[in-house]
């Protein structure tokens, strides 16, 4: 029983992590329909940024977070302006390839700059865990979970309740018509990619200290993020958040009660199963024919 409770606690913690990875991609992949292979690199970028600020420059970890978010915003805007804008009108696979190219360049640049050796960041959080009955979790991870939930809520409000959010959705549903409504579609493209990127950087900034930071940390992060976004239904923020927790649950119970070798397989089997039952994700949108 206590093991089970610990697994559930782990699920919450890990689910928060996954949800955080997913929401940035929901904007870029779910709404913009850009298969964003740089997501993992922006995540890595955020992590290295925190390392730079808190370990190299010796500034406060809590300061590093907002700065990393802003840096992600800027880098995302640059990627959009330099790589995506010229590709406007190209189809999704072609854009994807550009993003793969960008990923290769970014990942190896990171390695060139930082070397392949993993870095770690120390945080102001106590190293002794928070113990509640049979369950024990690290303070840092609780902080990450809380931040993840806050960022999810903020993104949800942004997309569904604000004018900017409406303009974003409108732009990617029908660019010309959005322009006719007075939306500056170029600015929206840049803004959406930048915001999505900054969320990835935020995830890196929060999780980098929880894990270790290396040029390859983005690889599985990307893969999981894609899975989560699709599990939740493209462009659906709440879907992505719930998808993150479901994936975490599948992995946690898979490793705990089936076999740790098949831990990741459990996650992917769940995804396959969900898509077989609901081919457009858990929270599919209505569509019509004719």
């Amino acid at each position, binding site marked *: 029983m206590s093991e089970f409770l610990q697994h559930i606690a782990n699920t919450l913690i890990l689910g928060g992590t996954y949800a955080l990875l997913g929401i940035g991609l929901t904007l870029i992949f779910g709404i913009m329909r850009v298969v964003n292979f740089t997501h993992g690199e922006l995540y890595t970028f955020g992590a290295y940024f925190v390392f730079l600020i808190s370990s190299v420059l010796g500034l406060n970890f809590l300061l590093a977070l907002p700065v990393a978010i802003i840096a992600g915003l800027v880098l995302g805007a640059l990627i959009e302006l330099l790589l995506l804008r010229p590709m406007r009108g190209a189809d999704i696979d072609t854009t994807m390839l550009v993003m793969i190219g960008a990923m290769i360049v970014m990942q190896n640049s990171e390695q060139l700059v930082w070397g392949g050796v993993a870095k770690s960041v120390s945080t102001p959080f106590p190293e002794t865990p928070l113990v509640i009955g049979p369950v024990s979790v690290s303070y840092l991870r609780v902080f990450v979970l809380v931040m993840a939930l806050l960022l999810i809520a903020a993104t949800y409000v942004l997309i569904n309740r604000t004018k900017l959010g*409406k303009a974003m959705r409108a732009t990617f549903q029908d660019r010309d018509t959005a322009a006719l409504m007075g939306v500056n579609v170029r600015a929206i493209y840049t803004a959406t990619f930048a915001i999505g990127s900054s969320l990835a950087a935020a995830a890196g900034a929060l999780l980098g200290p929880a894990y270790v930071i290396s040029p390859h940390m983005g690889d599985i992060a990307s893969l999981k993020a894609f899975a989560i976004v699709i599990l939740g239904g493209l462009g659906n923020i709440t879907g992505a958040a719930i998808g993150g927790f479901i994936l975490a649950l599948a992995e946690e119970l898979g490793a705990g009660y089936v076999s740790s070798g098949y831990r990741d397989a459990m996650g992917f089997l769940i995804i396959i199963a969900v898509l077989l039952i609901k081919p457009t994700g858990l929270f599919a949108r209505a569509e019509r024919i004719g």
Partner: protein
Amino acid sequence: MLEVRDLECRYGSVAALKSVSLSVEKGQIVALIGANGAGKSTMLRSLSGLLVPSRGSIMFDGEDIARCSPPQVLKRGITHCPEGRHVFPDMSVEENLDMGAYLRRDMAGIAADRAQIFEQFPRLAERRKQIAGTLSGGEQQMLAIGRALMSRPKLVLFDEPSLGLAPNIVERVFEIIAQIRADGATVLMVEQNAYAALEMCDYAYLLESGVIATSGKGADLIDNPHVQAAYLGG
């Protein structure tokens, strides 16, 4: 109010508009008719900034807007209700209407206008929360018209507003267009229902293969034998 001179528009190497000149006076309803592929939609697209003309000028209230982007054109008071509905498929009816008022800030005015549109198209009121992509074709067309009106335009460009609408709704739409004129705004419309369009307009142009073939008062064009044969099926 609107003065188009010598406009040329191309898709790649093909010129869809060769050299078009026309003018629209304030407070008028002007109709643009022509066969399939004559370039009517192209004309409206270049007016609203969706297409950049390769030659020619578009003067609106004394200013050349030929190279303005769609938002800039909209800010000057021109709204374009595009051919084939183009509602935002994953947004609700209400959100679509809100998008129509994207550049406006007067909350009260927006709410009032929305209420008026719901009054004009009760069907939309019934479906305010429905995702627009699941509306029927005609419902989407009503939404597109309503959305265009949400910007309180000085000049409305309608591209086939009656497309896919039931006869009684078509009637309603023409009433609305007349009302727009009565309210002091101006309308330039492309309509396949040429008879109705010519009947109600103040002035009309006939576009054929990218050039203006003839123009005149609506009633005059109705009587024009060529127009009769080619567009009124008579």
